[in-house]
């Protein structure tokens, strides 16, 4: 029972973010849809889950399950004809999870390049150089709270820009 809980927690912590990113690209940045579909996917995993010998096979199964959940969601929402759904499914299957992740990273890179130097410096110190926040705050003459709130603002700004770009792709 305890092991089950641990396994569940590990599974959630590992795969929820990955599937979130995958669905974010698939839904073109529609967070509401991502939330609903991801919930549905996780329940399907619990319902139909089985042991896998390799992680790659499991990941492939997981992404297929996610795509099916998304298709079902879209079908429920829009009541699409079968041909349209099939075409959508084909298009989704063509885009692998690795591609979507790489796409998000490239989007991030593009957005970061357009940012102000000071904001980029903060991000670089905190996330790329992995400096402690206290040190970063001291370097930039900021209080810890001010640094935290600035980081939140920057992250929010990047996310909004990413979602906006995804929507218009």
């Amino acid at each position, binding site marked *: 029972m305890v092991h*089950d809980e641990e396994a*569940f927690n590990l599974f*959630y912590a590992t795969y*929820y*973010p990955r599937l*979130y*990113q995958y669905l*974010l690209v698939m839904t073109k940045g529609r*967070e509401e849809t*991502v*939330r609903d579909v*991801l*919930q549905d996917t*996780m*329940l399907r995993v*619990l319902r139909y889950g089985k042991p896998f010998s390799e992680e790659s096979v499991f990941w492939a199964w997981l992404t297929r399950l996610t795509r099916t959940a998304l298709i079902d969601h879209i079908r429920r929402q829009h009541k699409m004809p079968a041909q349209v759904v099939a075409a959508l499914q084909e298009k989704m299957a063509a885009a692998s999870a690795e591609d979507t*992740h*790489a796409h*998000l*990273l490239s989007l*991030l*890179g593009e957005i970061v390049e357009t940012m102000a130097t000071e904001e980029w410096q903060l*991000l670089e110190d905190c*996330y*790329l150089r*992995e400096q402690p926040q206290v040190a970063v705050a001291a370097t930039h003459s900021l209080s810890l709270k001010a640094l935290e709130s600035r980081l*939140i603002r920057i*992250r*929010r700004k*990047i*996310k909004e820009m*990413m979602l906006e770009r995804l929507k218009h792709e």
Partner: protein
Amino acid sequence: MNRHDNELLQAVLQDEYYDAAYHESRSNCLFYIQKRRQYKRLLYRRLAWSIAASFLLVAIFLFHNGPQETASLKILVKSQALKQEQIRTTAQARAEAVEGVVEVVATKAKIEIARPAAKPKLSLVSHGELFQLFSDRPLLLLQDNNHHAKFILLNSAGDLPRD
């Protein structure tokens, strides 16, 4: 792909909305697991109870009705055997009876064949003196059952002839 880039990407995406969605989804899944476990436990418990109850019922049935059933079965077998015996006896008796009847009929037929047909009964109608005019011997007028008249000529001694 740089690990730091991944971390940055995750940090960017992981805002309040993401956290809320994550925790909600996780708690929903935990709730689902819990409910499924409860349901399975309940199902197994019900299954165990029903199996136990079935065994108990069978045991009670065998304990109470088993000997009676066996005895009644024996009686049934015996009665069946008796019935068969009766049927056999009846059939035999019937066959014998039929044979007897045939014999009886045959005997009767023989008797009837052996017995000659009864002569018509004659009754005396009138005295023969009346007809002495036509013969020296008295005549008897007799009438049979069909009221047919018959004259019998008596012998000299006044008796009926032998034939």
